[in-house]
């Protein structure tokens, strides 16, 4: 049975299913329980800053749902060690901006242990983390740093654009024997859609065609998919038929789905919330100009954030973020 639920609720549901089905799954993070098992008055659990872990400590106890100190490096490193020895940990990194204090366990441990050990290890670790701007949280709580994890060989990185994919991708991530960074974009966290109640997965490494079209390909991910869909709507009014691709997985990248669309349309605009340098937008541009060169009828368009930190003031933050209007303008520029 499907019902409309938010991305945040879909995540909560996936976590519950994973914890129910596999005793090796443990969940750790700051406030994931939120003092929920404290034996004192008025200590209802918080379930994390976005409420995505609400109810889990009550059901599974605090041996499997662990409040950690504000020690991201220690927590992630511990999770890697646990994954290496037989658990299947899910870690909540409150905001991806905090990668700054815990990159090593991902960069030099989780991603490399299997390779360095000659294939004799697996690191079934899932790191859930909130990404993106739009809540006036300013420069250190609004970044879209998934390009860093996507760039590291040995990691996988996924980002859902809707509740259905959020649940299925999260379950696939948790069951993967590889370390996966699961992004939870602020821009869609409280958007709803139909989500089945039971267990299902959305496979890692597969993009989706969110809307079919023939004149131009718009490539988005996470929160930019709905911007691309809105832009496609506006373009349709103009007689331009846009195909929208939702990457879903940033690593591995589903090159074939992008190339197939490009072959059909001959033109492509990639839309990314992240800053422009060394990002997913550049990778998509490279894909087009290497493997898709013969399909290209025009330059590739890139709609990204500018090469600046995220500003606080709402008016600046709006100017900072991609939008349907900016996408439409980029498409028009290619014509």
């Amino acid at each position, binding site marked *: 049975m499907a019902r409309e639920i938010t991305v945040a609720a879909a995540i909560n549901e996936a976590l519950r299913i994973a914890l129910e089905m596999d005793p090796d799954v443990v969940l750790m993070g700051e406030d994931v329980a939120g003092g929920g098992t404290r034996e004192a008055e008025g200590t209802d659990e918080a379930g994390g*800053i976005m409420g995505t872990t609400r109810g889990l400590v009550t059901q599974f106890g605090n041996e499997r749902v662990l409040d950690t100190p504000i020690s991201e490096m220690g927590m992630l490193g511990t999770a890697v060690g646990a994954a290496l020895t037989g658990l299947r940990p899910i870690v909540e990194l409150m905001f991806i901006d905090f990668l700054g204090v815990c990159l090593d366990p991902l960069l030099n441990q989780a991603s490399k242990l299997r390779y360095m050990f000659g294939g004799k290890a697996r690191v079934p670790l899932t790191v859930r983390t909130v990404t993106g701007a739009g809540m006036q949280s300013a420069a250190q709580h609004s970044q879209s740093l998934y390009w860093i994890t996507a760039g590291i060989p040995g990691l996988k990185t996924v980002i859902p654009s809707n509740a259905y994919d959020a649940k299925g991708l999260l379950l696939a991530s948790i069951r993967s024997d590889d370390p996966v960074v699961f992004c939870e974009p602020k821009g869609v966290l409280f958007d709803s859609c139909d989500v089945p109640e039971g267990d299902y997965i959305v496979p890692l490494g597969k993009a989706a065609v969110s809307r079919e079209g023939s004149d131009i390909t718009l490539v988005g991910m996470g929160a930019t998919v709905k911007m691309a869909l809105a832009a496609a709507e506006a373009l349709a009014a103009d007689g331009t038929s846009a195909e929208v691709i939702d990457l879903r997985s940033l690593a591995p990248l589903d090159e074939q789905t992008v190339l197939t669309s490009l072959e059909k349309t001959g033109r492509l605009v990639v839309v990314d919330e992240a800053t422009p340098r060394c990002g997913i937008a550049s990778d998509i541009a490279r894909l087009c100009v290497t493997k898709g060169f013969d399909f290209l009828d025009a330059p590739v368009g890139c709609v990204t954030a500018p090469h600046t930190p995220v500003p606080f003031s709402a008016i600046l933050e709006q100017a900072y973020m991609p939008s349907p209007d900016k996408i439409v303008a980029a498409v028009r520029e290619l014509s």
Partner: protein
Amino acid sequence: MDLTKEQLLVTYRKMRMIRSFEEKLSELVTAGKLGGFLHLYAGQEAVAAGVCGRLDERDYVSTTHRGHGHCIAKGVRAKGMMAELFGRSTGVCKGKGGSMHIADLEAGMLGANGIVGAGIPLATGAALTCKVKNTGGVAVAFFGDGASNQGQFHEALNMAANWKLPAVYVVENNGWGEFTPTEFVVPVKDIAVRADSYAMRSDIADGNDFFDVYEKAGLAVEAARAGEGPTLLECKTYRYYGHYVGDPLAYRSKAEAEKWKTERDPLDAFESRVVGDAMLEAEELRRIDGEVTAELDAAVEAAENDPLPDPASLYEDVYAQE
């Protein structure tokens, strides 16, 4: 106590300004007039005021996400702060920083910080500057109990101890890190004991008693200035509001908060001490209350009417040199 009447008045004004500033923000957010991610300092005023009472223009402070109080105590003007929180171009950071990055280098205020623990090495670096340039200055890092679990705390304190830097590390133990009780994540009763890992001086103050903080901060600052190296000063205190404005506070008991507010309020304690000891009169304090309210009302009105940043300014201030 070595405080003049003038100093006591200044102190009270600071504490009252912090309290009223935070209450005003809470109101403004609740009324939908203000956005962003705000962490209020109300309840901890005696710490900022007590420590900053020992500092002067040579000195630096760094703080955390919960940094308004330290700004005010270190001399940042409420007007520029309010404009900043309203995202105006007249803000102390031109609307680009907001609450979590509010800063004023001219006042020696190295910024709030959205990364728990990150202010600790910043102050350590400022202390290095003071030492290398021989300015006589001291740098103070304010941070929470939760931050004492960050690697940066450990690394920076160790360096400061090795180099005998003129630094003071003030950990404000308010019993909570977001929604998690401190005793869940800090296995020692007193965070001050962590100084022993670095053969560092340490002290514990009642963070709700201005006079106790002022005294112990005085010893720490004095030691730092004298080249005797850093101190870890733990101030036991409590935050009145939720972790952020909007926090439903489901995780802690109303009774716990009530007890602190009624029995341990830092402004009340200050008032009964100074009035009781006949150092100040209650009317003087009421006059300050009124002045603070007026100053804040004016700051809000100005901020509401100040210009928003030019969208083109988005691209400015990334690099000093292109």
